[in-house]
C-alpha cells in the first residue's frame, strides 16, 4: 500500500544521504522524496512516498526514527492529510491545439507560465492523481518534457508533526 511519510530532521551535512541510504540498504521503495528547510533554518522537512506491507512500513518508521539526525516521523497516510505536488509540463502548442491546451489547463486550474511560438509551459499543482489525469487528458503526443517535484504532505487540522 502507498504511504506518505513526513519527517523533520536536523539540517546536518549528509542528513539526506542517511535517509536515502537507509532506504536502499534495507530494500525499501521510494516513489518520491522531497526535502527543504522549514521556517526554522536548523530543520529540514522531508516527505517520502513509499509502499510496502504493514510490517515494512512499521520498520521504515522505526528505522527512520533511529537515525540520530531525525527529530520526528509521522505516517501522514494513517490519518487525514493534504498532499500536493507541483508539475511543469512543456507541450508543443501549435495551431488549433493552442486553444484546446489552454482550455484543459483552465479546467485543471493550471497556469501557463511561458509561451513561445510553438510551445506552452504549464504549471499544475495537486495530488498525484490529478497530475496524472492531466497528462492523460492532453495525451503523451504533445508533451516535450515533464518535471515533477514529488509529493509534499501535511496533516489536516490539529495533526502536527511536532519538533
Amino acid at each position, binding site marked *: 500500500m502507498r504511504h506518505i511519510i513526513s519527517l523533520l530532521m536536523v539540517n546536518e551535512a*549528509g542528513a539526506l544521504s542517511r535517509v536515502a541510504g537507509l532506504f536502499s*540498504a534495507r530494500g525499501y521503495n521510494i516513489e518520491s522524496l522531497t526535502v527543504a528547510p522549514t521556517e526554522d533554518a536548523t530543520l529540514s522537512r522531508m516527505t517520502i512516498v513509499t509502499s510496502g506491507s504493514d510490517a515494512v512500513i*512499521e*520498520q521504515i518508521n522505526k528505522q527512520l*526514527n533511529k537515525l540520530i539526525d531525525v*527529530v520526528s516521523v509521522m505516517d501522514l497516510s494513517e490519518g487525514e492529510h493534504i498532499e500536493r505536488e507541483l508539475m511543469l509540463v512543456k507541450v508543443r502548442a501549435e495551431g488549433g491545439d493552442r486553444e484546446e491546451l489552454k482550455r484543459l489547463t483552465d479546467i485543471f486550474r493550471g497556469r501557463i507560465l511561458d509561451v513561445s511560438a510553438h510551445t506552452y509551459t504549464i504549471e499544475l499543482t495537486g495530488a498525484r492523481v490529478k497530475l496524472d489525469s492531466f497528462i492523460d487528458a492532453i495525451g503523451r503526443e504533445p508533451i516535450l518534457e515533464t518535471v515533477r517535484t514529488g509529493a509534499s504532505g501535511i496533516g489536516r487540522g490539529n495533526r502536527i508533526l511536532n519538533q
Partner: protein
Amino acid sequence: MELTGAEITIRCLQEEGVEYVFGYPGGAVLHIYDALFQQEQVRHVLVRHEQAAVHAADGYARSSEKVGVALVTSGPGLTNAVTGIATAYLDSIPMVVISGQVPTFAIGEDAFQEVDAVGITRPCVKHNYLVKDVKDIAATIKKAFYLAKSGRPGPVLVDIPKDVSAQRTEFVYPESVKIRSYNPVGKGDSIQIRHAAQMLLDAKRPMIYSGGGVVLAEAAGQLTELVRLLGAPCTNTLMGLGGFPAGDSQFVGMLGMHGTYEANMGMQYCDVLLAVGARFDDRVIGNVEHFAQVPRKIIHIDIDPSSIAKRVKVDLPIVGDVKLVLDELLDVLRSSKQKPDAVEMASWWKQIEEWRVKGGGLRYKNSSEIIKPQYVIETLHKITNGDAYVASDVGQHQMWAAQYYKFNHPRRWINSGGLGTMGFGLPAAMGVQLKHPDATVACVTGEGSIQMNIQELSTCKQYHLPIKVLALNNRYLGMVRQWQEFFHGNRYSESYMDALPDFVKLAEAYGHIGMRIDHPADVEPALREAFARKDDLVFMDFRTDPGENVFPMVPGGKGLSEVVLAEEL
C-alpha cells in the same frame, strides 16, 4: 590558552577516561599522534593492521563496560578499519573511531589517501561526523562518546581533517550533552511490564530467551534472578552466553543453528516466550514461517524499537533499558501473590528432560587416535576452571567453544556474532588482555581465521600480552567444508587449506612459544604447560580431526524443530 585540534582531541580522550587507544599512524593523523606523544595519560597500542586496531578496541569494550577507542589515518587506514567497525555495529559494541582526513581544502579533489569516510562508514555506524571547524572538535567527541554508550550502543566515527587538527582554539570540554533529535529510552512502560508479569505467571510452558542485550546492559544478575523466580528454562543466544550461568540446572544451553535440541524445541513449543535483549535473527530461529506455525505469546524486551516485530510478530513489546525493565518486572513478580503453577511447571520440565534425552545433549565420540576439537575445548574449560576470557574467531571452532566452554559470567565470551568476522579473535584477545592484565585470556581459533590477522603476534610481543592461542587446525575451512559435505555433494570447493605455515616456527619467529599437539593424550599436558607460562604467549597448533562436524544443526532455512542430530548423518 589555545590548543591545537590535535591536542584538543587527546584532551577529550583524557576527559573521557580513555586508558588505551588502538591505532596506526599516517599522514592525516600526524598532528594527533604528535599530541599523543606529548602526554602519558592515554596510552597508545600500535597494531600491525587497522582492522586489528578496531577489533582490539572492540575486545576491550566487550570485556568491560567501557567504550573502545581506535585511531586510524585517512584513506586505506579508514577502509582497513571498516570491517572492524561493521563487526562492532552488528553486535552493538560501544566504540569511538577517530580517523584522519585530508585537509578541508583538498576534500573532493581525489587527494592522496582521500576517501569519503563518512560515506563509506554510514551504513555500519550508529552515527558519524566530519569535523570541519576546530571549534567543534570537543563537542563532537563528547557527543560521539555519549552516542556510543547510550541507548543501543554502537560505533561512532569522528573524521578530522588534517588542517582542522592543526588549527588552534580555546579548549572547553562540555559537561553535558544534549542532542535534540536523540532521546534514548530508559524505563519501560509500567503497564506493559505488569501485563508481562501476568502473562509469565499464567504461563504453562514459559521459556526465557536472552541475548547480547543482557550482557551489554549489565543485567545478568537481574536475568538470573528472574529465571530462578519463575522456575522456567532459560536459553542464551551466541551473543548472550554468560548472561545466565551455564552451570545452572535451569540453563538449557545455547539455541539456534547449533543450539541444543531442548533449547530449540523449548523455543518452538513454549506457550509464553520472554525475549530479552535478543533479536530473533536468522541464525537463532531459522525459518520465520516455520517458527510462526506454532502459537505462542511473545513478550519482547529491547532498547531498540526497530528490533521488535522486525522478523516475528510480538504480542507484548516493552521498549526500554533491559536492566531497568527487568528490575521493574522483578518488583512486580516479587510483590504478586500469584506464584508460577508448580504442577504445570513440573510437567513442562518433564517435557524438556525428554527432549534433553532425545537430543542426547552436546556430545561427540572421543578418540584416542585423533584429537577431537570438542575435547580441546572441554579440557580448556577444565584447566582454566571455566574462568578464562575466551576470544574466538569464526567457524566451527567458534561453535564448539560456545557449546563446550560453559560460561558462567557475562563478558567472558568475546566473539563476532552478527558479522561473523574471521580474524577477530587474536586482536580482540589483545584488547581483553590489556583491560585485564592479570586474567587468563584464551584465543580459540582455526588455521583459517588466525591467518587473517596473524601479524598481530607482533603487537602481542611488543606489549607483552600473554594470550594463549588455541588453533584447532583441521586443515580445512571447517564450517565451509561442513556445508559442502551436507549441501553440496561433498564437493570441497576451495575449502582445503594447502601450504599451511609451520605455526610453531611462525610463533617462534614472532618471539613467542609454539607447540604442536598431534595426539589426544598430549592435549591436557600441553594446555597445562601453556597456561602455566603466565608471562608468555603460547601458540598451540592442535592437529584435529578434519572430518568433525558441528552438531546439532538446524540447516539454513529450516525450522527449529527440524534439527539434525549427530547420529542422523
